[in-house]
């Protein structure tokens, strides 16, 4: 089931380039079903696709598209589905060059995309959604609903499900909605179906039934482009792969050529020189700030144990849906938990909401800066002082000299480049993020929860924020950092927990946390497996 190592996997990503040449079209007699070659796409100064390619040789294959966040996966898929125009490069279907100006144009060529968020009309029935955008069957008195339902039922049967066509879509579970989307794609005579992280919100059993559908589609000659970060899934369902890194296709070929380890190395690249890593270990003698035992929250976390000591930076690694975000929400009092205990500095904690958390000295830097982190139309000053003044009398004057000076001091400390009276909306992403961080520092917190602390900020601001986080930890403030960027975690954290499907699957001290190891563990490869492939070399 898993990719068998063929006499030792190649260790360097660069060697895949040689393999790539073997699969070049001229060495294959038949014209490939889909060939995207020489793709370039710029967003402003960012080179999102840089001579990327992806080739599907024949109908009826499952092609895995792999790559880390920001590797260009979404860009290449958006080009394929007609949502983006490439700046350079060609797309050919059956050897015929094509250009898609819009999603309907791609759809007309049999290319259909099922994205992460379902794009269904929630209030309409299953039948209407399956046949959405097509002409419904008309009878003498307008739409013939009986015939419409029969047609939808026939399409659903092809997927192998028997949902009631008259049921509204909002009543379905997420996995059922996904099936409706796949059925909709089938109703348009799809040839290439793109599934973008289809399993991120599905449980084990639902994943099984999705795979059964994918296999049925394969038999019907439909090719599937499958995007996922979960390695075991890839090795189970995919026939061939394309690996992108920084907008370049760094490896491609049949599944048998890859092992979990070689795949991760291709995605991550050569281990980067650690230039800016945190130094100074936390003393094991310091007090435990947060202790979590057996924490279980339905659908998000299972039996999570966790200890953080004063002044420690604990990293949380994991894919979207692994539970790292939910763990922070539980600690901050935003989410219910069914079982387990949370103890902060010796005191048991219940779910009491943000104000109680703030009172206990907890600060929270959420992932979505623009809707959860800052209040865009408000001045920088008011954004900074908000948590610090949460318990003031509501009729008192917020323009007191003392609090304004505190805001100015924090702004100077974090070198926020902005007029304190200007709305936060006018600041750059990096400066906005510094505001989100700074607002918790006015009253020195005991524990700081950070979710994606540098998402969407430029490289310089990122390094600056990392430096600030290390400085803050040096003052004895404890931190939990959840991040999808592995290099960020190993640069700033003392210890890293890896979560997979709501469970803690590994706890790595700083010395042992490499980017590729984190990526493999987060993708569901077990410690045992990683060791085994390492020995085999």
């Amino acid at each position, binding site marked *: 089931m898993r990719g068998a190592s063929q006499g030792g996997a190649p260790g360097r990503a660069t060697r895949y380039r040689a393999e790539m040449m073997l699969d070049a079209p001229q060495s294959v007699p038949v014209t490939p079903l889909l060939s995207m070659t020489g793709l370039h796409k710029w967003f402003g100064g960012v080179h999102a696709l840089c001579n990327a390619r992806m080739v599907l040789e024949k109908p009826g294959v499952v092609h895995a598209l792999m790559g880390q966040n920001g590797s260009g996966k979404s860009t290449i898929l958006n080009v394929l589905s007609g949502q983006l125009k490439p700046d350079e490069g060609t797309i050919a279907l059956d050897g015929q060059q094509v250009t898609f100006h819009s999603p309907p144009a791609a759809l007309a060529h049999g290319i259909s995309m099922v994205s*992460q968020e379902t794009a269904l009309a929630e209030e309409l029935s299953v039948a209407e959604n399956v046949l959405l955008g*097509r002409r419904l069957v008309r009878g003498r008195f307008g739409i013939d609903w009986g015939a419409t339902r029969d047609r939808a039922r026939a399409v659903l049967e092809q997927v192998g499900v028997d949902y009631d066509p008259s049921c509204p879509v909002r009543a379905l579970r997420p996995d059922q909605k996904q099936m409706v989307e796949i059925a909709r794609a089938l109703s348009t005579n799809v040839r290439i179906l793109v599934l973008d992280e289809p399993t991120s919100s599905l449980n084990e059993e639902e994943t099984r039934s999705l795979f059964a559908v994918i296999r049925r589609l394969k038999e019907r000659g439909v090719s599937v482009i499958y995007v996922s970060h979960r390695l075991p899934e890839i090795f189970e369902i995919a026939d061939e792969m394309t690996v992108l890194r920084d907008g370049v296709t760094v490896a491609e070929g049949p599944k048998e050529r890859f092992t979990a380890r070689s795949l991760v190395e291709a995605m991550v690249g050569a281990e980067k020189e650690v230039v800016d890593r945190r130094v100074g270990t936390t003393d094991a003698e310091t007090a435990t700030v947060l202790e979590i035992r057996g924490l279980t929250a339905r659908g998000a976390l299972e039996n999570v144990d966790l200890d953080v000591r004063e002044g420690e930076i604990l990293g949380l690694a994991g894919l979207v849906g692994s539970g790292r975000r939910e763990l922070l929400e539980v600690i901050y009092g935003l989410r219910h938990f069914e079982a387990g205990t949370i103890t902060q500095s010796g005191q048991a904690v219940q779910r009491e909401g943000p104000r109680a958390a703030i009172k206990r000295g907890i600060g929270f830097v959420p992932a979505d800066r623009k809707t*959860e982190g800052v209040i865009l139309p408000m001045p920088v000053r008011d954004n900074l002082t*908000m948590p610090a003044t949460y318990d003031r009398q509501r009729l008192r004057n917020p323009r007191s000299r003392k609090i304004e000076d505190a805001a100015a001091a924090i702004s100077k400390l974090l070198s926020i480049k902005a007029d304190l009276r200007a709305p936060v909306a006018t600041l750059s992403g990096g400066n906005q993020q510094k505001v989100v961080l700074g607002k918790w520092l006015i009253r020195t917190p005991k524990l700081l929860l950070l979710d994606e602390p540098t998402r969407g900020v430029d490289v310089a601001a990122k390094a600056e924020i990392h430096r600030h986080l290390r400085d803050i930890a040096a003052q004895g403030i404890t931190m939990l950092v959840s991040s999808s960027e592995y290099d960020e975690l190993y640069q700033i954290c003392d210890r890293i927990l890896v979560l997979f499907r709501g469970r803690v699957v590994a706890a790595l001290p700083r010395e042992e946390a490499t980017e590729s190891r984190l990526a493999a563990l987060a993708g569901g490869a077990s410690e045992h497996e990683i060791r085994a492939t390492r020995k085999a070399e």
Partner: protein
Amino acid sequence: MKQALSNAWSSTRPFRPVLAVVIILFALFAVWQPGFRTGLNIQNILGSVSVLFVVSMGMTFVLISGGFDLSAGAIAALCGVFLGKMIEGNIMPAAVAVVLTVLFGAVLGGAANGLFVGVFRLSVFVVTLASMTALTGVVLIWTQTMSIYITSPLILNIGVAHIAGLQAPIYIMVAVFAIFLIAQSRTYFGRDIFATGGSYTAARLSGVRTERTIIMVYAVSGACAGLAGVIAVGRVGAATPQVDAGLALQAVAAVLLGGTLLTGGSGSVVGTALGVLFIGILQNGLNLVGVESSWQYVVTGIILLISVMGSRAGGRRRGSKSSTASDCAVPTPSVALGTPSLGAPSEDTNAG
């Protein structure tokens, strides 16, 4: 000093259009019709907009908090009836009755609107439409569709008396304006309103009591409607069973004219005051030059559209910085916190 002046000037940006329109309109009518700029006429203008002015102040806070209040007219009418019943039934001394009426308005607004919008998170439109409808019914039932004539000198004086040469409603307007200006810029309550309207989630995560803030905002709006009801009773000399359903919408128009955004999070009672003034001047001026007064609605509507379009274009210029191309280059999945996203699935992605 120079810095302070430039700050003061830059803070007027959202209501510069309405300021300009008010000045132009005033100049136009002053030249056209000499009777317009007499002290008496200006007092007439202010007196005639006093009810609208007080309602609009409360409405400004509601809009800044990201809401809307259709029920202000119904609350004002019901408070008028409440006042009339108390005074003419000799239940309360008039002064106490006035205070109780304002409190009654606050309780109505806070309970009928604030609770359902803030705590149960129902749609603002539905909640205030429902309370407007229901309260209109209560007014009709309670009055038996009969006007209650007021004889209390205090109440009548609130409407029409002159103190030191100025109409009494003008003093009320100035006092209400001062209170709102201070609440808006010099209290944590005011800051919480801006925060809640700017981003409900971000405000909540930063420790703002968002639910309580919303309840308070509707209570304040209700209190304003109550006070407006008192003034209206004083000016007419009776508590009438007629509910002015257009009052709330006219107040919203005045608030929007003043540069407050319907999306919440920004705005100012200063702009609203100018918006109300605009409506008053237009009404009065058209009357004086002999144009049928119904034209004021046409003109108000057009000016409202133009000013909102203008402020949106300005907003786009200033806000364009926030989404740069590099944001699209690194697509990162984001999961909505707690509440699922309510974004309607767009039709065009499905069109085959």
